[in-house]
């Protein structure tokens, strides 16, 4: 059977299908993306359990681990509070989780995984969660005004407003996906096509730019846009 689409073995930067199974008359693939996500999720579960265990007997003067955990939580809380103001409390958990997951996914290219965020399925789902949050909060806080806002300033602009609303998840997911995919591809090309003596040492700089720098910036942008859109919908009430 010919493997179609992004699941193929033709080039090195593609998503590889590891094994397939049949269900509901369809063929499903367990891909490298699933493996990467399972590794990252397991890492977070272990980290969460360790952190929970550690913070149950928190000390007045924090040790190393407690210090690091407090640093992370304070940094993420501050990020949410500066952007969402008094609404931050409800969203801090989700935004912090999103931030950590996307960040570790983006920089996992350094550790030899194929970044899960370089798969459109992952980023589209993340963006659709954001889209659902935007719509839910819009309806909750503005009631009918959420829909009449589409007909402002004049009813003629309704199609454009509708497209603008629906383009949000598309642009957010494509931004994150394409950034991580371009990094993955350039590194794969470098590792695949360059003579051997250039493969030693030089890719470190590429990893720093494409994985660390680009990954951190895109994580920040994704979380920032989520917060801005949601606060925008709440704040208009």
């Amino acid at each position, binding site marked *: 059977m010919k493997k179609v*689409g*992004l699941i*193929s073995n033709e*080039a090195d930067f*593609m998503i590889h299908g590891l094994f397939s199974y049949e269900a509901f008359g369809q063929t499903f693939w367990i891909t490298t993306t699933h493996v990467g996500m399972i590794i990252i999720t397991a890492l977070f579960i272990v980290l969460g359990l360790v952190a929970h265990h550690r913070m149950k007997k928190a000390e007045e003067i924090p040790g190393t681990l407690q210090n690091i955990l407090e640093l992370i939580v304070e940094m993420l809380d501050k990020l949410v509070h500066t952007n969402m103001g008094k609404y931050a409390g409800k969203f801090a958990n989700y935004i912090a989780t999103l931030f950590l997951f996307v960040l570790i996914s983006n920089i996992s290219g350094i550790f030899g995984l194929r970044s899960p965020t370089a798969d459109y399925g992952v980023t589209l789902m993340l963006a659709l969660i954001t889209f659902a949050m935007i719509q839910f909060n819009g309806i909750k806080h503005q009631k009918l005004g959420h829909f009449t806002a589409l007909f402002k300033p004049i009813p003629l602009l309704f199609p454009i407003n509708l497209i603008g609303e629906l383009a949000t998840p598309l*642009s957010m997911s*494509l*931004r994150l*996906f*394409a*950034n991580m*995919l*371009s990094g993955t591809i350039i590194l794969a090309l470098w590792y695949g096509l360059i003579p051997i003596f250039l493969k030693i040492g030089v890719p470190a700089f590429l990893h720093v730019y494409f994985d660390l720098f680009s990954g951190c*910036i*895109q994580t*920040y*942008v994704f979380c*920032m*846009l989520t917060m801005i859109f949601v606060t925008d919908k709440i704040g208009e009430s």
Partner: protein
Amino acid sequence: MFSGQDLIYACSAIGAGLAMIAGIGPGIGQGIAAGYAASAVGRNPGAKGDITTTMLLGQAVAETTGLYGLAVAFILMFVKPFS
């Protein structure tokens, strides 16, 4: 000889190259953003951190249009929607 399929592949490759012309726009936009950020830092060196953060955020958003071109090029090259 050449078949219709070969023509489709050739045109897909040319189309992918043309799609990457989209890279011009973000280049100009990011350059403008960086230029204004540099002049802002020159006027007010104390606000360097805030200016850098804002510049990077704006540049990352401005990059999106170029990445749309990249996505189109990849779809043409690897997903092969017309074959």
